[in-house]
């Protein structure tokens, strides 16, 4: 977290720099199935973030020695395009993207039924095309939709959102200035029923603030979930499905 050198006034008449209330999400747009080659894909705009996620898999693992005999491995690669930030970023992964990739993968893996695809890999690729604070949360939201679009079996969707602290006040879904000059940033990800799969914080919060911020971020995640759900369902909304199944004895699903 930075210092407020710029001496920005974050609140005016109870509204934030972008005219939002403290507990309001930035505008969110989700498009499903935007890439032809990928098995599943999603484009998301979250505030000024423009992020695209693609899923390839399950597919053969290369190199072979990485494969696991009883389940699929999940790989997540978060990458920022050189032109995505104010000062051009050198291409390729840096330490931050390694960490982000790890925690993002760990945010999604709990709901993926990897045991259905032994000896294979599910690859998730996230490219940040334009960055505006909260790229990791946008990436996870897009990845979750892309995984569904690819037909990957999952116990639930994952939705992600951050809470922040600015001028001593807790805010939902911090924008760039709030993230750069605020006092704390807490990105989370969860299932719609409140099981948390990503939790990070840096900055300064009392234990009470932490609990409030967590509840606020969880509320934000629920709002994101509704948008994810609508995007997936709308994709096939206009048609009246007429699917014939030729199977006579569908298998029992395992009791988890």
């Amino acid at each position, binding site marked *: *977290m930075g210092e407020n050198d710029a001496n920005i006034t974050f609140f005016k008449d109870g509204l934030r720099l972008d005219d939002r209330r403290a507990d309001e999400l930035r505008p969110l747009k989700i498009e499903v199935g935007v890439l032809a080659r990928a098995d599943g894909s999603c484009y998301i705009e979250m505030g000024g973030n423009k992020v695209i996620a693609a899923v390839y898999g399950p597919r053969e693992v290369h190199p072979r020695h990485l494969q696991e005999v009883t389940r699929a491995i999940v790989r997540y690669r978060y990458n920022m395009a050189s032109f995505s930030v104010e000062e051009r970023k050198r291409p390729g992964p840096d*330490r*931050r993207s*390694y*960490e982000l*990739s*790890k*925690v993002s993968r*760990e945010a999604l*893996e*709990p709901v993926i039924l990897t045991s259905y695809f032994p000896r294979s890999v599910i690859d998730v690729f996230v490219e940040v095309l334009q960055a505006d604070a909260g790229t990791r949360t946008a990436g996870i939201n897009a990845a979750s939709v892309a995984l569904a679009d690819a037909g990957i079996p999952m116990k639930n969707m994952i939705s992600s959102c951050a809470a922040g602290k600015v001028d001593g006040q807790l805010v939902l879904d911090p924008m760039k200035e709030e993230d750069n000059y605020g006092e704390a940033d*807490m990105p989370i990800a969860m*299932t719609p029923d*409140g*099981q*948390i*799969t*990503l*939790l*990070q*914080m*840096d*900055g*300064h*919060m*009392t*234990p009470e603030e*932490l*609990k409030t911020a*967590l*509840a606020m971020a*969880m509320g934000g995640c629920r709002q994101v979930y509704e948008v994810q759900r609508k995007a997936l369902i709308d994709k096939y909304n206009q048609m009246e499905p007429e699917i014939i199944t030729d199977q006579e004895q569908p298998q029992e699903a395992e009791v988890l």
Partner: protein
Amino acid sequence: MSSVLSEIRKDYLYNMILKGTRADGRYFDQYREISIERGVIAKAEGSARVKLGSSQVLVGIKMQPGEPFPDSPNRGVIITNAELVPLASPTFEPGPPNETGIELARVVDRGVRESKAVDLEALCITPGKQVWIIFIDVHILDDCGNLIDASSLGAIAALLSTKVPASKFGLGEDHPLPIRDLPIATTAIEFGDVVMFDPDSDEESIANSRLTVITTADGSICGLQKSGTGVLNPEKIHHIVDIAGENAKEIREKFLEV
């Protein structure tokens, strides 16, 4: 998370947990024995060797003048790195840091940076041109679980023993590096609905999730990191945060005098 545990050992650990104990007899929120030795590396500006149970970590601090980052011309620079060298564990391979090593370094860095333990503005030599750069290098010697807590403790202990080598560069007299806070990382794992602090390597390998809480001297939280492929509900998170604070306070009082 760590290497594969045999089914028999996993079951054994699980059964003990159901009975309410851990394999080494500790309580669920109890830490292993901690020992800290400071100033162990003469050539480093500061150093500390931490033993946490059988885990061992050596942290060295090197300081030299250098250029500030363009967006903070009046502030010193902290660079944190962790080396998971092969001698520390059968699962560590030679080569550049992998995601585990990178995550470890970044969490240790978060504790030092977000707590503002080091006054970066006081490290400015000539605004816009020269500032002190602090290298925090974590060298893992023996991985027996909970390297994050051991490394974070090593980092702050090493910083507390650090002398700014001003005379070497003709920048005045050597003096102790001023430290303003004592961030402590406390890590818990969740397994079978039970929360355990300071996991050893067996416990780490059966854990569903791991949560690290970094607290400052006044009990505030300056960092959180969940890792692992499990889920946590808010109640567990609150529980971990509360106990983490108590554990951190105890460790701070016992080992780090102000």
